[in-house]
């Protein structure tokens, strides 16, 4: 089975976020620390488990500036077979469709049975790449999967998808794009032998043109307003704390409004 996983390098979520002077971009410099998008680790794990059952090949794809190769190497160290690095300028595109176009252009020329993506990247929160990639490739997609079984001798997927109030069970023939939610698979730690092998695995570089007009403009980036309102810390006897808290809720009409 030919499996592709689209992955993204993101700024470490624990790290401090700095805005540039004009407040139109996030500062990325030598101090910045990057990690693989956590949900993409889940996607890679799902891909590896699929390969373990059905054989075949797992190819990783990522786009961005040179540093992005680090996540490709991490993914290869988890056990993927090869990587495709798409070299772009690295300016963050807030337009998911633009990124999906670039990916679809390249993927169209590859063999695939399943394309895995993380359901969203924790940086720009578009939650769209997988769905839009499928649309551009005229493929079926199922988003936000939390359980995956491949049945029919590798001909169809049966998935559980996370929705409000439950899980949806869906079936789909291959090829298909699946976007992965936390809980689908627990990403493995790279083993030492795999880390050693990773740098030797094939990683092809392709230059890509960022085509199409710009559709989305950043007006500015801002830090969210600090939560206003009373920051009341209640100490003292538990019963007092509870009664005081309920009193404040009543004064503010919080419970009344909600109930």
């Amino acid at each position, binding site marked *: 089975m030919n499996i592709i996983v689209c992955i993204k390098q993101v700024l470490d*979520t624990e790290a401090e976020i700095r805005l540039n002077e004009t407040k139109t971009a996030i500062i990325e410099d030598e101090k910045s620390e990057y990690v693989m998008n956590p949900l993409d680790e889940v996607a890679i794990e799902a891909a590896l488990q699929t390969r373990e059952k059905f054989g075949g090949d797992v190819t990783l794809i990522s786009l961005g500036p040179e540093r992005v190769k680090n996540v490709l190497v991490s993914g290869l160290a988890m056990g993927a077979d090869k990587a495709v690095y798409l070299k772009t300028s690295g300016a963050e595109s807030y337009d998911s469709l633009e990124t999906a176009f670039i990916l679809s252009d390249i993927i169209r020329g590859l063999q695939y049975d399943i394309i895995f993506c993380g359901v969203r990247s924790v940086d720009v929160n578009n939650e769209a790449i997988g769905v839009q990639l499928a*649309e551009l490739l005229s493929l079926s997609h199922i988003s936000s999967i939390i359980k995956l079984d491949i049945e029919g001798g590798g001909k169809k997927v049966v998935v559980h998808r996370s929705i409000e109030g439950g899980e949806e*069970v869906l079936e789909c023939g291959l090829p298909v794009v699946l976007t992965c939610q936390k809980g689908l698979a627990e990403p493995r730690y790279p083993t030492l032998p795999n880390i050693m092998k990773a740098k030797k695995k094939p990683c092809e570089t392709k230059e890509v043109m960022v085509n199409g007009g710009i559709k989305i403009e950043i007006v500015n*980036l801002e*830090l*969210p307003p600090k939560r206003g309102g009373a920051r009341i810390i209640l100490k003292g006897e538990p019963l007092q704390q509870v009664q005081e808290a*309920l009193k404040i809720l009543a004064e503010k009409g919080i419970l009344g409004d909600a109930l």
Partner: protein
Amino acid sequence: MNRIFVFIEYRFGKIKNASLEALGEARRLADKYGLRVAALILGHNLDGLMDSLIWRGADEVLLADYKKLADYNSEAYVKVVTDETRRAEAAVIFLSATALGKDLGPKIAARLNACYFNDCVSVDLEGGFLKAARPIYGGRVIANSKSVISNFQVATLRPGMFRAIANAAQKAEIKKIFSCIDNTEIKAVFKNIIGAAVGKIPLIEARIIVSGGRGMKNAENYKILEELAGILGGTVGASRAAVDADWWPQEYQVGLTGKTVAPQLYIACGISGALQHLAGMISSKFIIAINKDPNASIFKIADIGIVGDLFEIVPLLIKELKKQPK
């Protein structure tokens, strides 16, 4: 363009409240800029729903009632919505950022070569160009972005951030949409729903959430949170640590790799307040935090902080609430 389309999510016999919130916001913008609002509802056997939809702020309710639409599937749904969008020259489409909205929204945008704004906490439409505020980087930054094209613009609106209209001034006109979906093949086939716990309100629909973290110590202890949530008419959530420890289901995880919620009231029990958790609940209107550690980060963003043992506080809350007249 003189129309805003609002996709109304109707599944398993219910219209999603979050869709009505998006509709209310569309009405607000329509009144501000002299536009019309059309609510699109897709499904099968929809007639009985109209009363709940015609007084919610739409000028028109566009109804697509076909057997192929009975269960949500992106293939037929995207065809109906995009065909109608082009026919009506509606440049702006709102959906609510539910699981369905975030599945259908980007597909609509890709098919229409539109710009797509996900999980908006505020929107505006000056000059016909969508301007949206979206939380990014785990909610630590708000991206104020705008569309530079007027056709087409798709946005999903975060549940809980906008107001539904309970009783609009004008009744909506009902129109049937005729769409050709005979040749649309549904490849991702819906089979069934599982795990829908009776009486459990989904996280993003809950107006009150009682959430437990590492301080809960085990799964058994969640019973007290369930009792508290029960009295308040809310639902129980959990931090990543608790979910990873299998104390509470993944589906109810609040945070960066879980769900983002914006309830009226969020009660955080034994949750320290890691950035990744805050990303999921910082939009809550009112936050109460209960934690033994006076230095817990959660106290920096809580409206009321109770420094104490949740195993004493929560039962007392239950007891005091039970005393109150209904």
